[in-house]
């Protein structure tokens, strides 16, 4: 039973990454209608930016949490301005192919310079060590990841669903022409939204840097699972992707305990089941 609690908690930690990443994807899909396959590469860039900030500029983890999402977010906005914006109104497939191509190029460039085994990034001193919870030894850093990502997820949800800015955004997705008639700069808002989604990915990258290796393929390995999370949660649903992210982390954690061999397929089995029973995803609405 003790082991079970431990696995639940560990699952929650992985779930935080799924939640943060799928949240970004959901925001981008919901507002821009783009299936952002570059998300994994941008997550990886977040981790690399944190690494560069630390090793080249001596800038600590804490600043990286703020700076990396901004830097990568700006990179994302440039992508949106120069390439993605021309795809508005076209089939989803075009956006998917374009972002997939971008992901391959970005990963290729990083791999060319940094190889595939990755670079070490130490846990910040303030979060080193761990505490004994009785049923398990919880590294403080992992606890921090769960709490921090939960806060960020809820803040994003609040921003989009409960504020005036969020209302503009949602309105702009429904009917851009009408919103523009009210004097709101819709293209700029869309660019900023893409930047926000990308920033969330980069933030997840910074959070994961001390746990996993900072390596070019860290996003490629994760992105497929995250897409499954988004599909299960319902494309474009903010709360759905947060809850599914955490829930799937836990389910995956339990699988690692009961039948480890299946741990990297269980998410996809669930995805198939959900698609068979409820094709719009658990919280999705029919388009």
């Amino acid at each position, binding site marked *: 039973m*003790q*082991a079970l609690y*431990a*696995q639940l908690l*560990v*699952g929650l*930690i*992985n779930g935080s990454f799924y939640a943060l990443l799928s949240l970004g994807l959901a925001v981008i899909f919901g507002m821009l209608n783009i299936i952002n396959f570059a998300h994994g590469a941008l997550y990886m860039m977040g981790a690399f930016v944190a690494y560069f900030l630390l090793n080249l500029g001596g800038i600590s983890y804490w600043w990286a949490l703020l700076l990396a999402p901004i830097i990568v977010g700006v990179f994302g906005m440039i992508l949106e301005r120069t390439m993605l914006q021309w795809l508005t109104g076209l089939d989803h497939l075009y956006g998917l192919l374009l972002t997939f191509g971008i992901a391959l190029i970005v990963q290729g460039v990083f*791999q*060319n*310079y*940094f*190889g*595939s*085994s*990755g*670079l*070490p990034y*130490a*846990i910040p001193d303030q979060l080193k060590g*761990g505490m004994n919870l009785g049923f*398990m*030894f919880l*590294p403080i*850093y*992992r606890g921090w990841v769960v709490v921090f990502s939960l806060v960020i997820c809820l803040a994003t949800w609040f921003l989009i669903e409960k504020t005036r800015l969020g209302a503009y955004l949602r309105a702009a997705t429904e009917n851009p022409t009408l919103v523009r008639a009210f004097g709101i700069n819709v293209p700029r808002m869309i660019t900023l939204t893409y930047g926000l989604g990308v920033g969330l990915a980069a933030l997840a990258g910074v959070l994961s840097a001390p*746990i*996993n*290796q900072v*390596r070019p*393929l*860290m996003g490629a*390995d*994760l992105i497929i699972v995250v897409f499954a999370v988004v599909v299960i949660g319902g494309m474009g649903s903010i709360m759905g992707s947060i809850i599914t992210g955490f829930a799937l982390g836990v389910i995956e*954690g339990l699988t*690692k*305990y009961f039948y*480890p*061999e299946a*741990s*990297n397929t269980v998410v996809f089995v669930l995805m198939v089941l959900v698609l068979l029973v409820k094709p719009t995803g658990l919280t999705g609405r029919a388009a």
Partner: protein
Amino acid sequence: MKTKSIASFLLGTALTFTATGVAFAQDKTVKIGALSDQSGLYADLGGPGSTLAAQMAVEDSGLAAKGWKIDIVSGDHQNKPDIGTAIARQWFDVDKVDTIVDVPNSGVALAVNNVIKEKNGVYINSGAATSDLTNAQCSPNTVHWTYDTYMLAHTTGQALVKAGGDSWFFLTADYAFGAALERDTTAVITANGGKVVGGVKHPLNTPDFSSFLLQAQASKAKIIGLANAGGDTTNTIKQAAEFGIVKGGQKLAALLLFLTDVKAIGLETAQGLNFTETFYWDMNDQTRAFSKRFAEKMKNNAPPTMVQAGVYAGVRHYLKALEALGGNPHDGVKVVEKMKSMPTEDDLFGKGQIQPNGRTIHSAYLFEVKKPSESKGPWDFYKLVGTVPGDQAFTPLSESKCALLKK
């Protein structure tokens, strides 16, 4: 009429000679395929570095000046046996490749082994670990150069059991390599009076090991044996530090650890780990000289790993055998027989021998990862702790199940 027929006879003979002359020239044409994981978790320990090592071996052999034409192609098997065998078949059937080198990932390596035997090519494996390549699944076309799971078990594994680590929990990569390493190490543990109390098989390329590490922690085993490699090993070691496993009194046995892995983990976390390799760049003047040349040509200036060094040494020995044969490099079995009949000697692995089952025998070295304060350069990672002679490190022929030995 008669003179005409004599003339045509002479002409015919002359043509025949010319034709044979051309055939002789073609006989010195060799194509080597470096098949590796070019972009995944094993790309840094093999990958482009292995292709470079093969190229350097060809250049250093000096055979080009003696009329040989040696080409190198490279391929990415993506750690998938089906892709690996498809590339191998295409290489033999379409591109007329004679020899395949490297091939890390035991699953791919064993699959490719069968293709090469069927096509009568030459197989110089450096990257794969499974001892089956020269044991149950041995082939007259195969030379297994650098290391294998039997060697890892009988060096690192044995040393740890003898030092009191008598209860083990395995974290095993769930494919041919992990299974072979766990099997060979378990044999050593039980033979030395220890026992295996449990284990987990994890999928290849797992980013998060915390679930598995918690299970290992709960098992109370003295040693947590890592029967995995590359990115999987680095993630395990890093995360084990995070979960306080070593501080809690359990010891990690990195059964297979490469130079690039230590770089990725960082000395701070990796210090004190014991493991075995058959090559390290900083062993002597020859290895340092080669490594310097190698690093200058590598993108990130990395010195060679033991896998890349094995590709170099293996190709050098292969080319020596070809030179000794004088030509006709296309009969794989014949070339490998020649390779086995000649003692091996090179700057990187020293003196050795290829056994009849295809296993190359050379010394193995027990290393310990240095403390950050002991390291004097960007790749100065290892302290030599002990040397195991080749005949004690690798499978004795009397224990080998290789069918080639029954002749």
